[in-house]
C-alpha cells in the first residue's frame, strides 16, 4: 500500500478493545449462548489470532463487531467494543467514517461463493471506493487494478474485467483481500481465509497478508482452527472454547507456556512433521457442550483430564499469569493442587506442555 496508515493511538492503548461481549441467538428451541463474555484487544499493526474448534463462537464474535450477525435472531446482550476508544457495537459509523469496509475490512472463508458471480472483479473492488471515498467509476476502477497488482494478480488490467468464475480459488481470495484493503482499513478481519484453499495456495495467501501488514500497518484479526497458521502469523492469541476465552496471551506464552488444559489438548492433537509412528495424534475425547444450556461449571470440565470437583460446579475466573497471559482454569487458583508432569502422549516433549502449570 502506498499510504501508510497512521494510528492516532497513544502508546499502550490498544486499537480495538472488546470487553465482555455476549451474543445470543433466539431459536425455537431456546436461546443459544454463542458468545459468553469474550474480551480481547488488538494493537495497531499486530496480528491477533482467534483459535478454537467449530461452533465455539469465533466467527460470531467478529461478525458482531461488524454488525453482520443477523438480528433477529441474534442479540448482543452485553459487552462493549471500542475502536480507538469509541464504541462501535450497533453503530454504522464513527467520526463520519463507516465501520464496515472503511475502518474494518473483512475477508471470508470461501472465496468461491463470497463474490458476486455477475459482476466483474474490478467493479466489485471499485465499488467499495466509490461508496466510501466518493470516487468516480473510472478513478475507482483504476485503483482497483492497482490493488489487484498489489495482491500479486498477474495482468491485473485484463483480470479486473473478468468475472469470479474465471478466477482460481487462490486468486479469488487475493481479490477478496484487495477488496478488503481498498479503503486502507485500520483492522483487517480474516475469517478462516485459507481453509477452503489448498496447502500451497494457503502459504501464498498468508505471505501476502503478512507483507500487506508490514507495508500498511493494518492490524489483523485472524480466525483459524489451524495452529500452524497461528504460530506463523500471530503476535497474540485468543483460544476460544464454548463461547468463552479459555486462554489468551502472546503467541509465545500460549504456545510454549500453555496454561489451559484445552490448549494443551489442542497441541497434543496437532500432527508433527516428524514421521515417527510412535507419534500418535491424541484427540480430545468428547465434544463441546450444548450452548442452549451451558454447564454451570467450567465448560471444558467434562473433557478435561485434570478436572477437579470445583470444575463442574463453579465457572473459573480468568487467572492472570503475568504479561497479559490469561487462562480460565481452576488449576491456576492458589488453592489448586500442584499438577506434575502431564502425560500428553508418548514421545512428546512433556516439559514444554506442562511448563505453564504451577509446578
Amino acid at each position, binding site marked *: 500500500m502506498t499510504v501508510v496508515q497512521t494510528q492516532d493511538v497513544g502508546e499502550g492503548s490498544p486499537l480495538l478493545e472488546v470487553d465482555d461481549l455476549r451474543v445470543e441467538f433466539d431459536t425455537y428451541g431456546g436461546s443459544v449462548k454463542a458468545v459468553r463474555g469474550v474480551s480481547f484487544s488488538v494493537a495497531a499493526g499486530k496480528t491477533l489470532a482467534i483459535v478454537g474448534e467449530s461452533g465455539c463462537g469465533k466467527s460470531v464474535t467478529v461478525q458482531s463487531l461488524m454488525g453482520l450477525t443477523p438480528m433477529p435472531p441474534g442479540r448482543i446482550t452485553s459487552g462493549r467494543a471500542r475502536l480507538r476508544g469509541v464504541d462501535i457495537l450497533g453503530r454504522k459509523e464513527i467520526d463520519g467514517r463507516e*465501520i464496515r469496509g472503511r475502518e474494518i*475490512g473483512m475477508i471470508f472463508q470461501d472465496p468461491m461463493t463470497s463474490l458476486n458471480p455477475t459482476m466483474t472483479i474490478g467493479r466489485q473492488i471499485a465499488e467499495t471506493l466509490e461508496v*466510501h471515498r466518493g470516487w468516480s467509476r473510472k478513478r475507482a476502477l483504476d485503483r482497483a487494478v492497482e490493488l489487484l497488482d498489489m495482491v500479486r494478480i498477474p495482468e491485473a488490467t485484463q483480470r479486473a474485467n473478468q468475472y469470479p468464475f474465471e478466477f482460481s480459488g487462490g486468486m479469488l481470495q487475493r481479490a477478496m483481500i484487495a477488496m478488503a484493503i481498498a479503503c486502507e482499513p485500520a483492522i483487517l478481519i480474516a475469517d478462516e481465509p485459507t481453509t477452503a484453499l489448498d496447502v500451497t495456495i494457503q502459504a501464498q495467501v498468508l505471505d501476502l497478508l503478512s507483507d500487506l501488514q508490514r507495508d500498511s500497518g493494518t492490524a489483523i484479526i485472524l480466525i483459524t482452527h489451524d495452529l500452524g497458521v497461528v504460530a506463523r502469523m500471530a503476535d497474540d492469541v485468543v483460544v476460544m472454547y464454548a463461547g468463552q476465552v479459555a486462554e489468551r496471551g502472546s503467541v509465545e506464552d500460549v504456545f510454549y507456556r500453555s496454561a489451559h488444559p484445552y490448549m494443551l489438548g489442542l497441541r497434543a492433537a496437532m500432527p508433527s512433521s516428524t514421521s515417527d509412528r510412535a507419534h500418535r495424534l491424541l484427540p480430545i475425547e468428547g465434544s463441546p457442550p450444548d450452548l442452549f444450556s451451558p454447564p454451570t461449571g467450567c465448560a471444558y470440565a467434562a473433557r478435561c483430564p485434570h478436572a477437579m470437583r470445583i470444575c463442574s460446579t463453579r465457572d473459573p475466573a480468568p487467572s492472570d499469569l503475568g504479561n497479559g497471559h490469561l487462562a480460565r482454569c481452576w488449576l491456576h487458583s492458589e488453592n489448586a493442587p500442584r499438577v506434575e508432569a502431564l502425560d500428553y502422549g508418548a514421545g512428546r516433549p512433556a516439559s514444554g506442555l506442562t511448563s505453564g502449570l504451577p509446578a
Partner: protein
Amino acid sequence: MWRYTIKRLIQGVVTVWFIATATFLAMHAVPGDPMSGDRAVTPEIRKNLEAKYGLDKPLAQQYVIYLGNLARGDFGISFTQQNREVNDIIREHFPVSATLGILAIVFASLGGILWGALTALYRNKLPDILIMFFVILGISVPSFVFAALGQLALVKLNDFLGFSLLPVAGWGTVSHMLVPSLVLGLGTMAYLTRLMRSSMLEIINSDYLRTAKAKGLPATRIFTRHQLRNAILPVVTVLGPSIAGITTGSFVVESVFAIPGLGRYFVQAVQQLDYTVIMGTTVFFGSFLVLMVILVDLLYGFIDPRVRLE
C-alpha cells in the same frame, strides 16, 4: 457467442421440422377430413375436390409437397374459407395475438419481479402473506375463469360509473388491450412471483451478499446491484416456456373477449379439420415459440456472464 447462436438456430430449425412432421401425421391420423362436413357430398364432387387439393396422392408424396411448400413459406389455402390463404390469415390476425401476448409477458414479468422482491423483503410479514395468497389463487385458477371474472368486473365498473371506461370486449385501442392482457398474464405472473421470491431468499443468505454488507455498501445498492440481478436469473430462464404458456392461454382469452386473434382461427380450424390452417398455424406458433426460447437463452447469456463462454 456466434457459434452458440448459430448452433441454437440450427437446433431450432430441427425442432420446427419435427413440429411440422408431427402435426402432419396427427392430422391425417384423425378420422374424417375437411370434405366430410354437414353437407352430403357426392362421390364425384369429393373425388374432384380431393384431386384439387392433392388429397388423392399417397401420404408420403403429400408430405414431400407439404414440406416443400413450408420451406418456401407457403402454408397453402384454407379448405373451408373461400379463397383465403393461410398466410393471409396469419398476416392479418397474428399481430393481434402477438400484441396481446407481449403485453401479457411484460405485465407478468414486471409484476412477478416486483411482487417477488416485495414478498422476499417482507418475508413472513403481512405483505408477504397477502401477496402469496393471491399467488396461490393466480396459479390454481384457470385463465377462462379469470377472463370471465375480468369481463364481469368491467361490466360492473362501467355500470357503476355510468359510462364506458374500458370496453368489455373487442379490439382496436389500448383500452381494449389492458384487461385481456392482464388476465392472460396473471397465471404466469403468479408463477414468476413465487420463483422470484425463492431466488431472492436464497440470495439473502448467500456469501456474496454478506461480503457486500461487509464492504459497507448502502442497503439500496446491495439490493439493486447484488441481489436483484442475481435473483432475476432463474426468472429469465423460465421466460421462454412462459411465453409458450401465455400463447396457448391466449386461445381462451381471445374467445372470451372477442379478440380477432390467431387463436380463434386455430380453434375453428381444428373443429372443421381444416388441414392447411391447422398445420399452418401450428407450425407458425411452433416456430414463434422456438424463436422466443432461443432469444431468451441469448438474453440469459447477456445477463449471466458464466453462460456466455459455453
